[in-house]
């Protein structure tokens, strides 16, 4: 609404990107995980005691485990044939970023973003779960919001903290007071 219409130049990253250069490699990694998961499932299933029932607790995990292995192997083959023609560029570069005029590149926090950004976000989420009972929902959620927003390229302004605080307070009011899902409160009662 605020941008003029005839400049649809800056397309942004679509929600579900089409086959990106990283796809075959990610598929291969995922397929590898499936095969590992298949082994784990089959071992876990074989450990279960069989019962007198017609079909014990181990039958379905066994079948699912085997299927995991088969489909994983199939995906490995598929991704291998996709990988062979040309080796893809590193997965974590946004191919469109290079084409974008410098001014419109989101102000990513230096080298953050990329896999490091994801790692920071995971650590933040775990820290959130530790801090939640101590400092209460509103404070810890605000912190989570601010860290995530900065990782996603928010401008470094106090307004981001204000947005986070407002959202956290609103969620607290709706879920704690209205719906009655009692959220942890810090020493200050929210």
């Amino acid at each position: 609404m605020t941008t003029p219409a005839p400049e649809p130049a800056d397309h942004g990253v679509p929600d579900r990107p089409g086959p990106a250069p990283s796809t075959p490699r990610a598929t291969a990694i995922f397929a590898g995980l499936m095969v590992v998961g298949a082994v784990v499932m089959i071992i876990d299933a074989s450990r279960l005691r069989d019962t007198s029932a017609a079909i014990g607790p181990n039958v379905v995990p066994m079948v699912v485990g085997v299927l995991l292995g088969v489909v994983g192997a199939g995906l490995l083959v598929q991704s291998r044939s996709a990988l062979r023609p040309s080796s893809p560029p590193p997965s974590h570069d946004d191919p469109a970023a290079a084409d974008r005029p410098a001014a419109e590149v989101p102000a990513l926090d230096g080298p953050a973003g990329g896999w490091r950004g994801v790692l920071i976000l995971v650590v933040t989420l775990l820290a959130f779960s530790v801090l939640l009972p101590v400092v209460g929902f509103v404070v810890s959620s605000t912190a989570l919001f601010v860290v995530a927003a900065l990782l996603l390229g928010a401008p470094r302004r106090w307004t981001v903290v204000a947005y986070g605080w407002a959202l956290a307070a609103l969620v607290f009011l709706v879920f704690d007071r209205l719906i009655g899902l009692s959220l942890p409160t810090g020493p200050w009662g929210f």
Partner: protein
Amino acid sequence: MDQLGLLLEGFAGALTPEHLLWAFIGVTIGTAVGVLPGIGPALTVALLLPITFRLEPASALIMFAGIYYGGMYGGSTTSILLNTPGESASMIAALEGNKMARAGRGAAALATAAIGSFVAGSIGTVALTFLAPVVADFAVSFGPPEYVALMAVAFVTVSALLGPNLLKGLASLLVGISIGLVGIDTQTGQPRLSFGVASLLDGIDVVIVVVALFALSEAFGHVLSGTGHSTVQPLRERAVLSRDDLRRSWPAWLRGTALGFPIGSLPAGGAEVPTFLSYSLERRLSKRRHEFGHGAIEGVAGPEAANNAAAAGVLVPLLTIGLPTSATAAVILTGFQSYGLQPGPQLFSESGPLVWTLIASLYVGNVMLLVLNLPLAKVWARLLTIPAYGIYAGVLVFAALGAFAAGGTTVDLVVLCAIGLLGLLMRQADIPVAPAVVGLILGPLAEQQLRRALTLSEGDPSILVSGPITIVLWIAVLMALLIPPLLPIARRRRAALAKGSREDSAEEEVGSR
């Protein structure tokens, strides 16, 4: 005519101030999350599942249904003005609708999408009213073998239809089923896949998995690649249809509905296939085929109607057989389960008033949605000006809230992050996440039915193909498995679409230089 009496009683239930309020809250939230990219109805319903502890069943289910319908309306706004479909069923609307918006016809595109959604949603709900009891009556005779076969059909078709190819869909489905296996086996009390971790014994909460797969992986993905900027097409006029637009739209609405509802109500569904079919049908029938790809209004009207009619259709197998064929339907099924209700033929006989109130509220919700979406289109469009970092950081706050509500221990958060990373990998690998949600929720039910069936036959597996219905269903499974590799129509269509949107962005890049 029995249905009409029951439906009238349903209306009496749905038109109470309290239920009207919940319907209104539902459709409003639904439209909002449909508009916001990255948040869909499945995620929203999952986040609101804790509400079931507080509300009576009818209120909560009316709200969930409102979110489900509202998400469909809102999704078209996003795809028309932003060209990033909020959910995959709106992909087609993004093709033609966004072109219309760029040509300054955004208001007409929004109007045809909203009215088309209303027409299709209403016809679909009428069809649901009359079809559901019939199917429920028929399904009373189903035993465990029929359910096993039906679920197999749903598994295979959901995998085949919701992804780029069958293998990737199956991979996603199996991941979901595997996650669903974690925890104590209810029949023998033995822990499965828990590895001695106490909080895994209860299984992994549906909310955690849905939040991780939909919200967390999305946020991770945007951190990984940067969010970029998106251009929202401005909306200048009010959303109205000119006489000419209306003349071109209404046949497309009806054709879209005629495709959407029957396909949606198959126990194989998903709303994607009918939208694709409707698009190609409109293109073939149109006298102005050259306009397609450049903003043809029929290309918005038909698929949007098909989308909404299919959404109503999906409720048929959900309510009458307990078979969810989309991620949102699967999460709504969990909502039923948290009240101790199991959708299926018994639901109509045992909780008749509840079901009919729910169905009546769908009519009410549709009217509310039309009112909400036509005059207020500009207000919803404003939601799109929220910067991406705000949306995804907000989604994370809700994700953390959902994880807390589902257990709240650090182990839950670790599981959340692990599945979130898995979801990120799936996104990178172009593996759809929706089949995983269906597998997660349907998997345990399928195992239960399989065990029942084989207990009945004392271990003889031939019971699974014992009746005519089961044989037909298993043939359908085989066909769904064998036809895609031989006749990849859907894939080719998808590829053509992907190519279309890629050309799109190429054009834009050229334009920017």
